[in-house]
């Protein structure tokens, strides 16, 4: 803080203005996975401009290092005041009282109304009566499809597949191995992304992370295995991230792709065909919907020196929820009106899907369970184990982990 600014601030303080409330300048450290120019950097800059007495120092942490770095920082007392945490990781930090309980602050807030937050994102921050963060935005999954290929294959582009069986039939009709075109692209990689893609299928089939061997889940994994074994999806589905898989869709090497809204900017540039978005197909007509919940949470560490100012910053970000779609490529995590959304057709579908988006977990053992699920999926897709057996083995392991 330069001396001029201090003089200016103390002058304001002496003149008796309301900034007396923060008589000393406040510095908040913010950890984010964003790069300069992205969400947190923009939010911090705008907040800084409105609050002469608060400065926010933003630091980028690699997505995969967030949990490790935070745990180490907390252990040594060097943690930030405000930080991004991926939604399934919340359960790791929440029960340890490392995060500030926002419930008392929210009760007094005019800006945050938790009833407007979608149930999926809310479940990732609410633990009993405590509220350990505010979702900064969300994303979820849907089915992208190449309408031109639908027409060429004699399928009606206004009637995308709505059930699992239809998805399989469509994938079969659209696969053209002589042209290197697969029916469907998705990701079954052995990382969190693989679980992110598979779990909604389990949930649609009536199961969840702790109940993985239901008949519905077995049907889902059998369908995935058939897609791979019959060559309707590439074997490299097992090693491609969602972004890489959707890349093959953009290049015209897959007729449908399952992925999230983050694909849209690139797709609008790369895909030289007519593409559209549909809701994820369900097990059978009228079955319960489910979709994945991605993105993370704005949280305050419990040992911050400035809880009040940090919460003000969280409120500020929450109040800007209507901008996240157009400016930052995220879906709003609460009911807000988005004026003139970009990619309106896709927005309508993703916005509808958000109502069914469900959090992964919550459980502090999430990482182990997630890896168990990935292993089960991969061992079935590679034909090493029958899908049903793979899921039953996974259930045994999960029971042991949660025990």
């Amino acid at each position: 803080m330069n001396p001029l600014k201090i003089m200016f601030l103390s002058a304001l303080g002496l003149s008796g203005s309301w900034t007396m409330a923060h008589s000393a300048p406040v510095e908040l450290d913010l950890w984010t996975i964003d790069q300069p120019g992205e969400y947190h950097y923009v939010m911090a800059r705008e907040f800084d401009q409105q609050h002469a007495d608060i400065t926010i120092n933003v630091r980028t942490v690699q997505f995969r290092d967030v949990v490790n770095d935070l745990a180490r920082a907390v252990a040594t007392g060097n943690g930030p005041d405000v930080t991004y945490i991926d939604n399934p990781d919340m359960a790791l930090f929440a029960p340890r009282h490392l995060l500030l309980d926002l419930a008392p602050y929210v009760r007094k807030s005019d800006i945050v109304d938790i009833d407007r937050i979608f149930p999926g994102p809310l479940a990732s921050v609410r633990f009993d009566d405590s509220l350990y963060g505010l979702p900064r935005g969300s994303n979820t999954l849907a089915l992208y499809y190449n309408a031109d290929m639908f027409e060429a294959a004699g399928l009606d582009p206004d009637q995308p597949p709505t059930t699992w069986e239809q998805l399989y039939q469509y994938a079969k009709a659209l696969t053209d191995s002589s042209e290197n075109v697969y029916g469907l692209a998705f990701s079954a990689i052995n990382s969190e992304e693989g679980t992110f893609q598979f779990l909604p299928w389990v949930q649609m089939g009536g199961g969840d992370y702790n109940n993985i061997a239901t008949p519905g889940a077995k049907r889902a994994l059998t369908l995935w295995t058939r897609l791979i074994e019959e060559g309707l999806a590439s074997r490299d589905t097992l090693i491609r991230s969602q972004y890489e898989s959707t890349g093959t869709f953009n290049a015209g090497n897959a007729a449908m792709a399952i992925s999230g809204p983050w694909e849209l900017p690139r797709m609008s540039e790369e895909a030289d065909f007519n593409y559209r978005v549909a809701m994820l197909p369900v097990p059978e007509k009228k079955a319960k919907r489910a979709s994945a919940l991605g993105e993370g949470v704005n949280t305050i560490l419990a040992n911050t020196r400035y809880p009040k100012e940090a919460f003000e910053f969280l409120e500020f970000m929450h109040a800007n929820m209507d901008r996240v779609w157009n400016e930052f490529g995220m879906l709003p995590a609460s009911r807000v009106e988005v004026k003139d959304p970009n990619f309106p057709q896709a927005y309508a579908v993703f916005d509808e899907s958000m109502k069914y988006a469900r959090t992964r977990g919550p459980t502090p053992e999430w990482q182990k369970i997630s890896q168990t699920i990935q292993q089960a999926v991969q061992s079935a897709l590679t034909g090493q184990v029958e899908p049903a057996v793979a899921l039953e083995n996974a259930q045994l392991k999960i029971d042991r982990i949660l025990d």
Partner: protein
Amino acid sequence: MPRFKTGLMNGLIDGKGFDTTLVLLSLGYLLVFSAFPLIFNLIMSFQQVDLFSLAQLVRPFVGWDNYRDVLTRPESWPIFLNTVKFVGISLLAQVSVGFALALFFQQSFPGATFLRGLFLAGWIMPALVVGAVWSWVLAGDYGVLNYGLQSLGLVRDKIFWLSDPAWTLYAVIIANVWLGIPFNMILLSVGLAGIPDDLYEAAKMDGATCLQRFTTITLPMMRAQLGAVISLGTIFTLQQFDLFAALTQGGPANASNVFQYWSWQLSFENYEIGQGSVISMLMILFVILVAVVYVRSTRHEQAS
């Protein structure tokens, strides 16, 4: 004070003080950067450790539980076999191809040294970059290798090098062999250059054939170099992590997983840090064994 200063300076210059300082410095370095992490790791392998107790030393002691837990997991035996295969095949291919190339470049022909230098280009590249390049070469649908094999009519269907469990481990081995050959070649070239030419000339005059010269002169004279290359190669191969991260992440379904990558997964993806330490302890024990063999074999050379 000046007196003390000269005393100290003298001590440093006359040798005794200097020697002691050097020994203390390197001893301190070893203690801080080698012994401490090793012991820390050893302790962790007997403790219940999670992310939040990482910075403490006092943690619940669990005896051999971590060892029992890791070694009874169904995946531990296949991963162990993968590790053996990975090290064994990589080493065999690296050393034999490296040796063959070293012999080849030992012949004098125009551009021999220049070409040998070019081979080093592969070795100075970071393994992550090498991994990224190989992942394009080996890609199943659009990879260069499949395209080549299919155009030549060697295979009919695409081989999914990185996602078919029958192939993935070999895909990483191919990349690792490519990465390791230059190092082997250079080290063995140095050894070859050290064999006096008159030995060969004398043998030639006695009527020894090419093969006889190789088995009776080259191989025995290269024993020390081969021993060094094999032991160092074992250690480098056991350290190979980047290629797994870039190519297969140990997948699919652990088909290409090895101890060094699994240890990292346990510690930093699953946060089962005690279990991860167990694997690294087992690897350390094995590496120490290799190091002992290496040191003993070179000591034998010096003595003779």
